[in-house]
């Protein structure tokens, strides 16, 4: 009954969450949801780090996670500020509306 969870299973789980997030980034048009999906991807990476940290018995991975969390907090702060600015100028949160790269 007591079975070990193989590391590759955990890592595969992380990859799955990551790609769900990535797919979300690609297919959702609401920029808020896109931001959420990015958080999802970040979390997947975090978990990968922790898994490796555990398996390699090295705490560098956990350290990285701490910093990633910080960066994620900063990122979402700025990202949401951008959303607000965008909403103010474009009256919408549709990614199709932001095509400033085009010209």
């Amino acid at each position, binding site marked *: 009954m007591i*079975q*070990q*969870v193989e*590391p*590759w299973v*955990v*890592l*595969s*789980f992380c*990859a*799955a*969450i990551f*790609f*769900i997030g*990535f*797919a*979300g980034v*690609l*297919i*959702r*048009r*609401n920029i*808020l*949801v896109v931001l*959420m*999906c990015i*958080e*999802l991807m970040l*979390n997947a990476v975090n*978990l990968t780090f*922790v898994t490796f*940290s*555990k*398996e*390699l*018995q*090295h*705490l560098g991975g*956990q*350290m990285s*996670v*701490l*910093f990633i*969390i910080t*960066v*994620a*907090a900063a990122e*979402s*702060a*700025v990202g*949401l*500020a*951008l*959303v*607000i*600015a965008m*909403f*103010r100028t474009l009256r*919408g*949160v549709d990614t199709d509306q932001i095509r400033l790269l085009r010209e």
Partner: protein
Amino acid sequence: MDISPVFFYLFAGLALGCSLLVVLKKNPVASAFNLVMVFFAFAGIYAMLDAHLIAALQVLVYAGAIMVLFLFVIMLLNADVPSFDLQRSHPGARVVAGLLCAVLLLAFVWAFKNSPSPVEPGQFSASRIEAAGGNTRVVSELLFSEYILPFELTSVLLLGAIVGAVAIAKRKQKVGAGGGVK
């Protein structure tokens, strides 16, 4: 890995399901709540992997701070937009994106499964961490000794983010619209 398969699969299933809902739900509020669930499930897995400090931070920062921020913004913007719920993008793009993500995922899984185990593990075995006072203590000590420079640098980063967020989100002053103050 000495973690309980039952709880792992429980949390993993929860996380997978909720994250799918994040992507698939039309209403961003629903997505946000599902995202909170994912965060909690992740916290559980962190705890099982002996990363107690991270598990705590996950709950505090992600599920607490960031999600609140998201919800706050959604509420703020939701007020005066009738069609806040948007259609998903072009069906073709959706299919291609989903397919490619799946293919890549399979490649990753294949790679993870066939990779050899590490030859020599590092010095922080579970028992040694336990002897040194537990995960939180060891991680914190590392953070303030070996990783002090990046740690301090994050403060600069956060400062920059705060200033940037304020600068971006602040309503621009109307130029030349004198008489605002009288």
